[in-house]
């Protein structure tokens, strides 16, 4: 039995009374995540990632289709499903009335977990929060609040851990701490579902990936298969002026840096020749292996997968 099963999940937001069309946020999304997987859910803003996670977590309801957590329907059998889920929400929310320890004790209580102090202490130390245990939530920095959110999600030792962009706006140190800890939990058998905008994180951590585009799954593959499916190489260089339009359309441009996906040496030569003909000078030329970001851009532009 899969740890998570999304079965033809659709979500339509009705048109607002003051006008505008109804919005189809998810359109028949189906995939399974097996127990123990480290699974990445990728897609641009507005692709439906957070909507899908909200439906999984019971914060929202699917218009049709269903979601199962270890076989428990998140609507019909919500209590059992939610006991198995630990969700780190995307928004940086906190309850200003309580200290870190109180927040974790209260969260344990909601799940009916009694005498949880040992595990709470372990969470606090693993996430670098031990010296903040008695600080009020209001006094914590953004990064510290994010750590508490992670601890709150894990307080009942859920079998499935869901992280919705947990590293957005987070410093390097916390990312390191967080991923070490989550990787350890994953090794112990916890299933992890991650959404992130940092594709290098997804490439490094996730064994399998789904990519969402406008509410539909456009790629569902192991990370290594996805990387193989991309053009194998990327030509990267810097220019000081703008590229001609037909060249720019094929490139990924970040400020002065221009990158072209290329299959072989002939293509690379052609690109360089085209740049020279346009009267531009390519500097710092290099050729590198394609990474997940290249795959992502290809998939999103509809070129592959």
């Amino acid at each position: 039995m899969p740890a998570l099963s999304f079965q033809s999940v659709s979500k339509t937001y009705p048109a607002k009374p003051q006008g505008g069309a109804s919005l189809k946020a998810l359109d028949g999304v189906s995939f399974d995540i097996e127990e123990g997987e480290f699974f990445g859910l990728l897609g641009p803003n507005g692709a439906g990632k957070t909507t899908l996670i909200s439906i999984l977590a019971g914060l929202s309801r699917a218009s049709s289709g269903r979601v199962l957590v270890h076989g428990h329907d998140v609507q019909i059998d919500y209590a059992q499903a939610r006991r198995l889920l630990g969700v780190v929400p995307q928004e940086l929310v906190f309850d200003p009335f309580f200290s870190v320890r109180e927040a974790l004790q209260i969260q344990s209580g909601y799940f009916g977990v009694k005498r949880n102090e040992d595990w709470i202490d372990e969470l606090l130390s693993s996430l670098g929060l031990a010296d903040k245990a008695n600080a009020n939530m209001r006094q914590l920095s953004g990064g510290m609040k994010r750590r508490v959110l992670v601890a709150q999600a894990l307080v009942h030792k859920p079998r499935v851990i869901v992280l919705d962009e947990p590293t957005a706006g987070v410093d390097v140190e916390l990312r390191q701490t967080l991923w070490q800890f989550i990787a350890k939990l994953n090794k112990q058998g916890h299933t992890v579902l991650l959404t992130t905008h940092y594709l290098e994180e997804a490439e490094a951590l996730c064994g399998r990936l789904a990519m969402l585009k406008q509410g539909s799954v456009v790629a569902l593959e192991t990370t290594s298969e996805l990387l193989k499916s991309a053009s194998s190489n990327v030509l990267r260089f810097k220019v000081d002026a703008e590229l001609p339009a037909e060249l720019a359309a094929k490139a990924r441009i970040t400020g002065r840096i221009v990158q072209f996906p290329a299959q072989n040496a002939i293509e690379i030569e052609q690109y360089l020749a085209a740049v020279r003909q346009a009267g531009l000078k390519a500097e710092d030329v290099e050729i590198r292996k394609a990474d997940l970001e290249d795959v992502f851009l290809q998939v999103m532009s509809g070129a592959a997968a």
Partner: protein
Amino acid sequence: MNGWQTLFYKEVLRFWKVSFQTIAAPVLTAVLYMLIFGHVLENHVKVYDSVPYTAFLVPGLVMMSVLQNAFANSSSSLIQSKIMGNLVFVLLTPLSHWSWFFAYVASSMTRGLAVGCGVFLVTGWFTPLHYEAPLWILVFAVLGAALLGALGLVAGLWAEKFDQLAAFQNFVIVPMTFLSGVFYSIHSLPTFWQQLSHLNPFFYMIDGFRFGFFGQSDVSPWISLAVVGTALLLVSAATVKLLQSGYKIRN
């Protein structure tokens, strides 16, 4: 503690941590009402022929404080959690709609009754009170607190902004409590206003509560009990239904 007890505990801890604002302030307000109205009206108004005005006023103020604070607790807790976004911590748990209902209503009752006791202790010090039928006092205090706690839950679910909640409080709850006979016996009103007062469920809560002190009231305490009990059942059923459907909190 199991789930709903934890939510109850959290809600009590929430108002307890700011008890200066949530308990002391409403007690002070009620005492001011008593001092001012008692001073102005003591020698002008006699109720039920023999009861001095201040003695009549005290149970009304106690009940008004119970009702307003029970309402304030669930409604302000919910709207704050919704706006801060931290309601998600409760939404993600396996707590059922019944657990939500009992935890929020019980914590609101706790606050309402705590404020009521405070008002009672302070104002009772100024004027001797009788206790003709203490059981009625308890019954109406508990039922009234539960009813307003549930109404606060509905208002907190419904409101999306603080000013919507303030409107509900200022245009519904406050007028209904003030016009329910806190400050006067409705027998002193012209017939039309007397009849109108009979349509206000808050009137029965305060009238029944007062019966416990004086053994006299505008209507029989059994009628008041029936009205308040029915209102509590209806509002509770509606509240549980809203919670079950996830009205405005589960998208």
